């Protein structure tokens, strides 16, 4: 695919910081949307802002774009004070949740808009604009649809036009607000891979907002998890998944089973199961989290939590096992081979969480 209209990714200084957000706060009336949020993104990094609705992730994105002015804090990009710059000078390419395509313009006119509104001295020649629009059209695989209006396109096509329009201005940073929010699952997965490719090729620092943890973990270099306007954790997908900072993050990043327990010294006790507590675990009453697929099944005389199988449902190699443990119905997952033969409803067994995470009981 021809992408000569895009700046090519250079390889020097890949870990240079490009985006530095420090102490950003923003309220709407009495509602605090962002509370003292600080984070950084490296040059050419793909950063995901992940959080449930109302967590402030879109507000943060709009602050970066210049569409909202924060009450406090600082945003620097490549060392420049971004907040002092009006929206139009920031050169950020933004893809809106509902694409915000110009409804009275064709696809080509939409993509060319950012180039045509430039001052005459900075505006490329008409032929150059045409070339660049054609290149972008082929990048987003919409060569034949240039003359269509947005209303004549499917959701996925609109999304690609919005991306092409944002890339046309050769943005210093790309901002995507729930880029796949309005698409169905199939199109979503296809576009996800493709978007990552476009990012890698364009070599632009990208910040994208999503509430879908799978999307964030799958796509991003690093993930920032927000809740109620606060940054909960920032790290690579593996870091945050393996080492969630708190119960919220643990719960938000994947299915979780939760049991009450007690830590005394280096011993963790959950119901009748006793094991070694991880180093530095909080003392006293705790909450123990484990992933439903990170358990070992053992006979009743083995180690683990005593439970009773209530239901077993098999789908290909994956088996869902519902177990009653300590009066709590846990939905566990196992791969066919890891499930001992004979697990059937009514069977009493022991379940041993392989990697329990211990958090202090929330106050």
């Amino acid at each position: 695919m021809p992408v000569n209209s895009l700046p090519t990714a250079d390889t020097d200084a890949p870990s240079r910081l490009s985006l530095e957000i420090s102490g950003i706060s923003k309220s709407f009336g009495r509602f605090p949307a962002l509370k003292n949020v600080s984070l950084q993104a490296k040059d050419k990094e793909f950063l995901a802002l992940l959080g449930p609705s109302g967590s402030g992730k879109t507000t943060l994105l709009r602050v970066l774009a210049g569409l909202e002015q924060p009450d406090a804090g600082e945003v620097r990009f490549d060392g420049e004070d971004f907040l002092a710059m009006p929206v139009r000078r920031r050169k950020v390419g933004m893809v809106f949740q509902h694409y915000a395509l110009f409804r009275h313009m064709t696809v080509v006119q939409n993509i060319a808009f950012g180039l045509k509104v430039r001052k005459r001295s900075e505006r490329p020649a008409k032929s150059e604009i045409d070339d660049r629009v054609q290149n972008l059209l082929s990048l987003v695989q919409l060569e034949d649809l240039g003359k269509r209006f947005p209303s004549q396109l499917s959701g996925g096509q609109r999304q690609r036009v919005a991306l092409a329009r944002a890339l046309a201005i050769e943005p210093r940073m790309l901002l995507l607000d729930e880029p796949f929010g309005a698409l169905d699952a199939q199109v979503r997965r296809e576009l996800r891979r493709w978007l990552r490719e476009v990012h890698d090729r364009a070599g632009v620092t990208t910040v994208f907002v999503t509430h879908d943890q799978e999307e964030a973990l799958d796509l991003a270099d690093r993930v920032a998890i927000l809740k109620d306007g606060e940054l909960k954790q920032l790290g690579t997908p593996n870091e945050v998944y393996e080492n969630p900072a708190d119960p919220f993050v643990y719960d938000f990043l994947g299915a979780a089973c939760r049991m009450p327990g007690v830590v005394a010294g280096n011993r963790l006790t959950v119901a009748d199961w006793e094991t070694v507590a991880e180093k530095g675990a909080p003392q006293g009453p705790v909450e123990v989290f484990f992933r439903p697929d990170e358990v070992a099944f053992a006979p009743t005389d083995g180690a683990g939590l005593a439970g009773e199988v209530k239901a077993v449902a098999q789908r290909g190699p994956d088996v869902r096992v519902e177990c009653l443990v300590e009066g709590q119905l846990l939905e566990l997952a196992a791969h066919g081979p890891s499930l001992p033969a004979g697990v059937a409803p009514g069977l009493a067994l022991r379940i041993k969480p392989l990697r329990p995470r211990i958090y202090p009981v929330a106050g």
Partner: protein
Amino acid sequence: MTAATTPAGAKPISASRLPGLAFLLIVASAVVMAVLVLMPLFTVFHDAFSKGLGKYLDSIREPDALAAMRLTLLVSGISVPLNAAFGVAAAWCIAKFEFRGKSVLLTLIDLPFSMSPVVSGLVWVLLFGAQGWFGTWLIDHDVKIIFATTGLVLATILVTFPFVARELIPLMQDQGADEEAAALTLGASGLTTFWKITLPNIRWALLYGVLLCNARAMGEFGAVSVVSGHIRGLTTTLPLHVEVLYNDYDFVGAFAAASLLASLGLVTLVLKTALEWRHAGELAANRRH
């Protein structure tokens, strides 16, 4: 008729009675329409031409009639563009921004609709008339507002203020501010964004609003009557001219002038219908009326 689709025997009474009733209602409304709308309209043209085409043309070409037409065009030519500008500005504020007092502003925009036009005229007399608040000052500085074109324009603006704004607000609220935000991030200035994004998105609704505003501006009687002073050839707009002639028992002249106003109404109606038909999706009117 629903009778055809109803299975035989199922509720035969209501099935046969309802279409009959509907038919009666349609006939009744047609009769009412004919008596209340078509007949007066016919009378206007009939009386205007009752002494023949020559007499009709004469009374239209008479200097006072021409002056009244010119004045009407002048007054609406000033007040409609101003109200279009005010309307776009007000709708833009209300639809795209959050601010304190928004609902108060909305209510104020609607005020002329709920107020008698006579009051809309009278307020200007109370402010700028000889006995009004600023009357003495205006006389001292030789500024004439009441009994002059300025007063007519002010009265017309006040009466027709809501038309454009009311038409645009629901549409602009519907469209949201995302496209404008997108244009800004792409490097467009505020002004470019307005001309290239905001205005094209509301063009048909704006035209519709302007059309209604113009029809009202040209036809306004009550408010302008108060501030006009009825000086023939100087401060009589077309509707006032009709009244003056009628009071003088010049029926052909009165109806000839009235026929012009009626024609204006018909043209407005045709254009309005055409707009509704071609650009239904872009008109807020369809959601409101």
